[in-house]
């Protein structure tokens, strides 16, 4: 069992997300940076369906009531437990260890996997906390005790060369954007602006949507769209022209025109965007 001492700004339980319930209005949810989440599980020898903790902007501390093997990935934080500890490594820690994540030096979201997985009760097939609908395990609070599961696939991986691409590099060289279904609702200049301008990540960004500010993307037609199905990665443009890239907890339908799509997979897609801190600037590029 793990006791949460301090959750930090926002810490949630996440796995690969809810599959197969979108048509009844249930969002996908799941880890915002899937590659970092998967790597954390792999390092401790978990099955890929195991849940990890998604920690926003560091600040988490917890006490291990039993001996455990953990690994941390994603936004790189100073990590202490049995002294200073390595990032991207499986760490075997004795019972009673207090694990602390400091402020991240790079990135926004860190993932802490524990061997066996975080054992929350699945809701609609997933242990992910959906911050929009409230489905899934509760957001972590001080004093909460988490059980450890048995979703073990093999031995922990001890490979110092294991790591992830630096999200800061992806954000600098540009996230990939593909044309969206409503590109024709915008002026010709709007697409050029989307891929040419610098976009600042707004402080109101969260798991529901990554809100960007920059030159307004102008529409070539007015009027409204009836609600359309959406996917995480869709770039919606409300009337103020400031794009919102939908995150894992986005609603399953939306009425704003979608100008482009940031792909879910790949190092220059949504995983990198999940690591963009408020205030940071990023760019898009076509493929």
């Amino acid at each position, binding site marked *: 069992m793990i006791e949460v001492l301090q959750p930090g700004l926002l810490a949630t339980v996440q796995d690969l997300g809810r599959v197969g319930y979108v*048509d*009844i*209005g249930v969002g996908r949810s799941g880890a915002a940076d899937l590659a970092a989440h998967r790597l954390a599980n792999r390092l401790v020898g978990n099955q890929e369906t195991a849940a990890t903790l998604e920690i926003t902007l560091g600040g988490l501390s917890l006490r291990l009531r039993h001996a455990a093997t953990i690994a941390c990935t994603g936004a790189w934080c100073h990590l202490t437990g049995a002294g200073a500890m390595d990032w991207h490594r499986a760490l075997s820690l004795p019972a009673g260890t207090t694990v602390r994540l400091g402020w991240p030096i790079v990135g926004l979201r860190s993932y802490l996997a524990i061997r066996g997985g975080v054992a929350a009760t699945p*809701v609609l097939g997933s242990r992910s906390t959906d911050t929009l609908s409230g489905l899934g395990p509760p957001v972590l609070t001080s004093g909460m005790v988490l059980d450890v599961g048995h979703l073990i696939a093999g031995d922990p991986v001890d490979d110092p060369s294991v790591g992830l691409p630096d999200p800061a590099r992806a954000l600098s060289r540009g996230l990939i954007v593909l044309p969206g*279904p409503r590109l024709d609702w915008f002026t010709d200049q709007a697409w050029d602006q989307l891929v040419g301008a610098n976009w600042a990540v707004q402080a109101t960004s969260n798991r529901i949507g990554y809100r960007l500010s920059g030159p307004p993307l102008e529409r070539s037609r007015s009027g409204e769209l*009836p609600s*359309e*199905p959406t996917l995480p990665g869709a770039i919606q443009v409300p009337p103020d022209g400031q794009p919102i890239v939908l995150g894992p907890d986005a609603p*399953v339908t939306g009425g704003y025109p979608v100008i482009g799509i940031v792909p879910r997979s790949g190092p220059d897609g949504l995983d990198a965007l999940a690591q963009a801190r408020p205030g940071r600037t990023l760019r898009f590029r076509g493929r």
Partner: protein
Amino acid sequence: MSAGRLLPYGDRAVLIELSAAEEVIAVRDGLSRPALAGIVAVVPAARTVLVEFDPAILSREALSELVQTAVATPAPNVIMTSDLVTLPVYYDGADLAEIAAWVGESVEAVIALHSEPDYIVQFCGFSPGFGYLTGLDPRLQLPRLDSPRPSVPAGSVAVAGEFTGVYPRSSPGGWRLLGHTDATVFDPGRPQPATLTPGTRVRFVPT
């Protein structure tokens, strides 16, 4: 606008643009009834259907052919064969009198207009289990409230635009309230979490 136009939605999905609610129902039904290889998810909305697919198994061209076949399948077949759900309704909503005044009919007539037709759940959205029911009498097709209520009680039966629906739980909302039902329309602990799934036929029974 041709029926069944495929719009790009990234490398693993397409958005099918349709011209009528009946086509949405037909396409959703046609693409999700048999387990079609390569189709990962079919998500309907008002005039569009999102199809997530695995491009390694199903090509865009093959998907386009499936869509054209589905569009050509008449929707009445769907309506005749779908499951029927009846929901008892207490017509005591906060907006009932205003709706009656707007429509220019008595409250009793408004209740009859709402409870006589069979509806079809066209899609879900807004919140888990919130079904958008099509088949609403044009006289009851009113715009949303100018300013949404901060809290609409769970079970509220409401109308907005071309749709009627039931709020699965208490939430903010801008639909106009006709009444309420005691039925639980969403419970993630049930084997069938949502009562109002796309394609379901629905009848409201005044209580």
